[in-house]
């Protein structure tokens, strides 16, 4: 029924080798973490499916070669009626309807997508009919470890830039790093950073060991993204007026870090999942 090998050659191989970028289109204008509310539909036709609906906040949505699109194939079955499709972005009917203008991570594309009876063949189905929700869930641990790591990376850059500045900039005839107020601010930032990093690495180690780590991955993502914003803000403060200027990196880091508390599940969503696992 399916040529599984062909599908792997066309999508997985070039993606794994970094020759084709991937995107993940689950979120819709009216459904994010609440995936049971998906409206995008796939209707069975001869030889494949016709997908109609719209997707929102799709990172890589315009630069990807392959987008994994989630659509309802069996409306009566709820979460078990969701199917994932591998959709080449040059498919007729794959429309990038808007590129969002954002606060930060401005060089990363965030696309709104719309599909109007977009035809995909039977072998576009990933993992079998009705497996979409399960597939989406299976990516959550590594996805959240990823955003935790990203938060740590942005915060790390902020601390390094602030340290560099504090050691060079002089006030009252000494580098401002000699002022205990500045020292303590940077000590707090570095300590929080280390805690966030260890939480991310802890979740990653559990994942390596094949152990369930959704709680630890959510905790790491929650904590790292929250403290990263605080760290970047405190580091910006070290630079005083310069921290507020486009020409000094802290201004950009301050804009970039904010998304970490929002995507891949907001901080509140992480708390809901952690609560279920206490």
């Amino acid at each position: 029924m399916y040529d599984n090998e062909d599908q792997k050659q066309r999508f997985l191989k070039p993606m794994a080798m970094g020759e084709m970028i991937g995107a993940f289109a689950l979120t819709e204008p009216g459904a994010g973490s609440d995936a049971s509310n998906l409206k995008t539909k796939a209707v069975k036709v001869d030889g494949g499916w016709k997908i109609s609906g719209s997707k929102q906040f799709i990172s890589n949505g315009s630069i990807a070669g392959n987008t994994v699109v989630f659509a309802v194939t069996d409306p009566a079955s709820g979460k078990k009626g969701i199917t994932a499709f591998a959709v080449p972005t040059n498919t007729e009917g794959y429309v990038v309807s808007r590129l969002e203008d954002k606060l930060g991570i401005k060089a990363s594309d965030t696309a709104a997508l719309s599909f109007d009876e977009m035809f995909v063949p039977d072998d576009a189905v990933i993992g079998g009919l009705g497996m979409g929700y399960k597939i989406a869930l299976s990516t959550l641990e590594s996805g959240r470890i990823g955003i935790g790591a990203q938060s740590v990376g942005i915060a790390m850059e902020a601390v390094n830039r602030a340290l560099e500045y504090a050691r060079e900039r002089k006030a009252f005839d000494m580098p401002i790093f000699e002022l205990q107020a500045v020292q303590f601010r940077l000590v707090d930032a570095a300590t929080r950073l280390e805690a966030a990093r260890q939480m991310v690495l802890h979740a990653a180690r559990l994942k390596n060991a094949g152990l369930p780590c959704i709680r630890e991955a959510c905790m790491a993502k929650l904590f790292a993204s929250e403290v990263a914003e605080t760290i970047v803000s405190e580091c910006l403060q070290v630079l005083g007026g310069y921290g507020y200027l486009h020409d000094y990196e802290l201004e950009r880091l301050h804009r970039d870090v904010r998304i970490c508390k929002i995507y891949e599940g907001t901080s509140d969503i992480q708390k809901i999942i952690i609560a279920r696992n206490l």
Partner: protein
Amino acid sequence: MNAIAPTQAILATLDEDQRMIVETAEAFARDELRPNSAKWDKEGKLPKEMLDQLGALGFLGMTIPAEHNGVETDYVTYALALMEIAAGDAATSVVMSVHNSPACASTACMTMRTKNSAS
């Protein structure tokens, strides 16, 4: 090495291959990302050549098994590499993290079809 960058202590716990991946990420961030990050932020896009390079270095498809042509690195190495890339340019780290998981991770589920025949 930066004052706060992945501590030597963490790097010391890695094997040769893992350490090389993290150090490659750090070098890529230092040479290719950090010097251009402000420009890309203004332009609102990332150059395709840089993303090709990111892929060629193995940072896309990091946790995909080797049998499916991935790098098959572990999640600690993945997280440490992603930290370095994010420190160099946050926008690039978005492409990298979204590509690896969920995009690659969910696409890799096409290999489970033989095991799970749903409905």
